[in-house]
């Protein structure tokens, strides 16, 4: 029962997407072209994110750690 209402909800969401981007009005080959373009763009964006985001986050993390880490060493040497 939950699966059915979930499927209906997803279908309704798809209808809203169709209405907003006006693919409701397009002929089938135009829809194919439009969806292919969109899905290609999305796949490229996700692939780039997959490759680059961990590297960026770890570099940023190391940068901030380095900044705070230097301060920590300085304070430690003063206390000593």
């Amino acid at each position, binding site marked *: 029962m939950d699966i059915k209402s979930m499927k209906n909800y997803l279908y309704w969401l798809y209808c809203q997407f169709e*209405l*907003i981007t006006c693919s409701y009005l397009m002929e089938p080959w*135009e829809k194919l072209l439009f969806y292919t373009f969109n899905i290609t763009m999305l796949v490229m964006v996700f692939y780039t994110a997959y490759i680059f985001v961990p590297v960026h986050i770890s570099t940023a993390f190391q940068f901030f750690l380095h900044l705070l880490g230097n301060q920590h060493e300085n304070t430690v040497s003063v206390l000593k």
Partner: protein
Amino acid sequence: INHIVHNGGLYKRPFNEAFEETPMLVAVLTYVGYGVLTLFGYLRDFMRQWKIEKCQNATEREEQKDFVPLYQDFENFYNRNLYMRIRDSWNRPICSVPGAKVDMMERVSHDYNWTFTYTGRVIKDIINMGSYNYLGFAQKAGTCQEAAAKVLSQYGAGVCSTRQEMGNLDKHEELEKLVARFLGVESAMAYGMGFATNSMNIPALVGKGCLILSDELNHASLVLGARLSGATIRIFKHNNMQSLEKLLKDAIVHGQPRTRRPWKKILILVEGIYSMEGSIVRLPEVIALKKKYKSYLYLDEAHSIGALGPSGRGVVEYFGLNPEDVDVMMGTFTKSFGAAGGYIGGKKELIDYLRTYSHSAVYATSLSPPVVEQIITSMKCIMGEDGTTVGKARVQQLAENTRYFRRRLKEMGFIIYGNEDSPVVPLMLYMPAKIGAFGREMLKRNIGVVVVGFPATPIIESRARFCLSAAHTKEMLDTALKEINEVGDLLQLKYSRHRLVPLLDRPFDETTYEETED
């Protein structure tokens, strides 16, 4: 939302008009939709140019390809790429009298709306929310029909002449006396076509050296008449009295553009109800301004005659004003009287002048006798002179229907433009795909609506326009409201951010604003 009062007590009743602002997200998404369609439009035009796709719209001939292009402007681009996709919501063929319910021929298109074929089936009893049938006189049986049939057998169908030559029948004289009595003016004149009344008589009234101040959203007939007259035209913002006063002051102070001479005449063109917005003109303020600056007023009551006012005499009676304050009262018989044609009412000297100098009187065929009889019978019915209270009941039924329908739609959460008392109800749709979807979904549920898009409205403000009628019973309105609610949920049309608490049975006046939640 405007209250009364801050203009010196000119209004005797609350003036509730609201135009809710477009939500930002909706505006952005509408532009996104139009952007996608424009890109696909360019692609299709490219394919048509390079013969990859068959070109089904009008183009220039081969020999004329080097001339100035005819179909390159935005209107034609819009027509072949956007309008064609949703064209099945317009020009639907009906096959019965367009009363409260109408029959329609079903049609399908196999090549995406370039051509239509009839399936042969007739869709019966569609609730008609699109006809300007305000008082329900679009009937095929009843006193009006019997009287018109009798006159048809007596006078025939055609007049075959203009008013000034052989086309002035005694029926026309009777009609004009009746119209003058109905409006409360000295004299009136009737013409064969409502559009022609405006476009042919404004040039007879004003000419070069005169000034026309016309509202932003005036109808095409008024604009055409103003342009044909040769007078200088200045536009003031829609229903905005400060803008009108500023223009009047500038006109009186500075006079004509180069010579600084005073203007020969200043004519203010307004309409009673604006049919695309559902707003009512601020007539008390316009009349006060007109008197202060000594200009003339031309009031086009096409939609408001018969539909407003306690006894259906139009917007002048609605505000409780004197009909003699309006210099030229124009109206049409198409909407509330179920006939065709237009009239102009005013002082006797004015109408006598128009009988001689109006282009329509000299060159256009006069009204056909059965049509005149329909107008006479329906007008007598509204005035109560046929001995029944049918007319009064219809006017009251229309007012009740209007208030009920508007209140229920606002409670559901739709954005509705216009004044609380106008029987024209525009429901905002905004996105181009929803225009086509709304028309089709409502037809599937057996309700016929009129959806309006770009050239008639600004490009992002497309709307569905409901015209209420005294012939709609409460059950019909309830059915229609239920279906509109369903379609509104399906298409996500409930954009309004002012949620009204549902009222019990009080009329919507200024004391209910405390119940509005934002």
